[in-house]
């Protein structure tokens, strides 16, 4: 599986360890009584590493409504962390030249996403997956919008991407929800994300709140929803190694 960070995948590291010769007597000490071995094996499986696939270094979001809620929780954490950093700024608060209106909008969105993430954490309780670690190395927090061909995205470019992705994600996840109360919750949040998306788009270019890249403006007038695996392909680019996710139950 392609590993963008070029770090050793866990299985490769383990293999290197296994290649180190172990003296026969020491080996017996390690294998010992089956109970001891069993204990070692069980000790090696912490709850945190539940469904980490060493081949892809991704964690499975899980199954059922809990899986969908953890999926949503992860996306909200990403947005919350992003906007917290936007408001905190690159070399000062916000990007260079941020207007009063932009600061107000971005601060509000920061608050909303922090609330969404904290809400899901509270609602999931002990079923919550460990906190995600973001990777925003591809974003320049001191730039409003990046020039064409720039190495890093600007703040509004990234915000637009996250918001549009969030809307498509919630809409594409709806069909997998089985408890109507969870469907209502997802519905309450997705419309707010769509308000965010429209506002960010308007900051970038007038009257792009709806556009053909995210809405089918030719035939149906519908948002272009995305299934969890497709969403995670993009989201994983902003999640650090060890924090990436997969969603095989929701293909």
């Amino acid at each position, binding site marked *: 599986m392609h590993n963008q960070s070029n770090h050793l995948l866990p299985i490769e590291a383990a293999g290197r360890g296994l290649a180190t010769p172990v003296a026969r007597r020491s080996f017996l000490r390690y294998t010992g009584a089956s109970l001891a071995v069993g204990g070692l094996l069980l000790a090696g499986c912490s709850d945190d590493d539940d469904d980490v696939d060493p081949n892809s270094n991704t964690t499975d979001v899980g199954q059922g409504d809990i899986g969908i809620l953890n999926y949503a929780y992860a996306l909200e954490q990403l947005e919350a962390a992003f906007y*917290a950093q936007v*408001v*905190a700024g690159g070399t000062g608060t916000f990007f260079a030249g941020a*207007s*009063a*209106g932009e600061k*107000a*909008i971005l601060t*509000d969105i920061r*608050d*909303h996403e*922090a*609330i*969404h993430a*904290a*809400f899901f954490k*509270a*609602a999931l309780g002990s079923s919550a997956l460990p906190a995600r670690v973001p990777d925003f190395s591809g974003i320049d927090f001191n730039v409003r919008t990046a020039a064409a061909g720039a190495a890093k995205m600007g703040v509004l470019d990234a915000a637009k991407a996250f918001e549009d992705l969030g*809307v498509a994600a*919630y*809409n*594409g996840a*709806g*069909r997998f*929800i089985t408890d*109507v*109360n969870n*469907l*209502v*919750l997802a*519905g*309450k*949040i*997705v*419309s*707010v*994300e*769509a*308000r*965010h*998306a*429209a*506002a960010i788009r*308007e*900051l970038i270019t*007038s*009257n792009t*709140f*709806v556009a053909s890249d995210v*809405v*089918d*403006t*030719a*035939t*149906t*007038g*519908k*948002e*272009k*929803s995305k299934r969890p695996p497709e969403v995670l392909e993009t989201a994983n680019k902003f999640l650090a190694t060890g924090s990436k996710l997969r969603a095989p139950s929701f293909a």
Partner: protein
Amino acid sequence: MDLFQIIDDIAKVDPEVYDRFDSRRAAFRNFLGFGKKVSAAALPLAVSTLFNKAYGQSNNLPQIVVDTLNLALQLEYLEKYFYQTALASNILNPEQTGAINIILNDENLHINTLRGVLGTQAIADPTRAGFDYTGSQNRRRAALFPTLGGTTSPNTGTFSSVADFLTVSQQFVDTGVRAYKGGAANLITQKDILESALNIHSVEARHSSRIRSLRRGGIQNTAAPKSWITPDETTSTPALPNNGVSGAPASVGPYLAGTPAASFPAENNVTQGSAAVNVQTVVTGQSFTVSGTAGAEAFDEPLDAVTVKAIAKNFAADPTALFN
């Protein structure tokens, strides 16, 4: 729109798609344009009819699904003729005109989409004359917004106030968002229809965000309203008559509670989920504190069909003919 590509894409997930279409060669050739001309304006409806023949379940849909979609369809018509009339009134500036054109295009497509799913069970097009945006119910009572159609022929008149148009636009679209949200639960057994409804719902929310930014004089303006619903709107927006709709709250409006209020709270609600999380205080351990209005802003509330109808009937030319 490349019809061939669309059908080929469908074939990837449904290899029998070609068998599902009307196999009469003449009918199919017409869609391909070999026979009589299909006008560009008719094409979306033609395409949706084509797909409805293939996939339409209008004969098998549960009544609750039909009713939910027909309420949505009536709201789309309410908005369609509202925006169409505004454009014909020549009161909008270029920025507003651009935005309303985009929104109207979406509403027309939503109508096509919903009609495609409902098939023969779709309600008839109410036409412009079916709506009276002054709220007088075609002069049955005093107008709520006389500038939105005048007093002589309020169900055919043009609009004379941009401010009133934008105010009522916001109320229509926010009611629509709440209605789709409230109706989603009814669609939980129809996964494709549910996803379609969610995909319309989010577009309406984009519309609301834009209308609100127009109302405050542009996206950069820091005046009210925000692009999201703020808790003060629950208390500051005048309530509408409930038209005697059975079971509707005494006071109805886009930011007020529905019925039952526990399931359909007002927009200033901050209690979410079965664990009753207070979302105004849930954020802890951050270097910042959320604003005093963020909790209410972060969640939009659903609205029940009864209350939606009570609100919408205010703008029917004949309150007995629509939103029943």
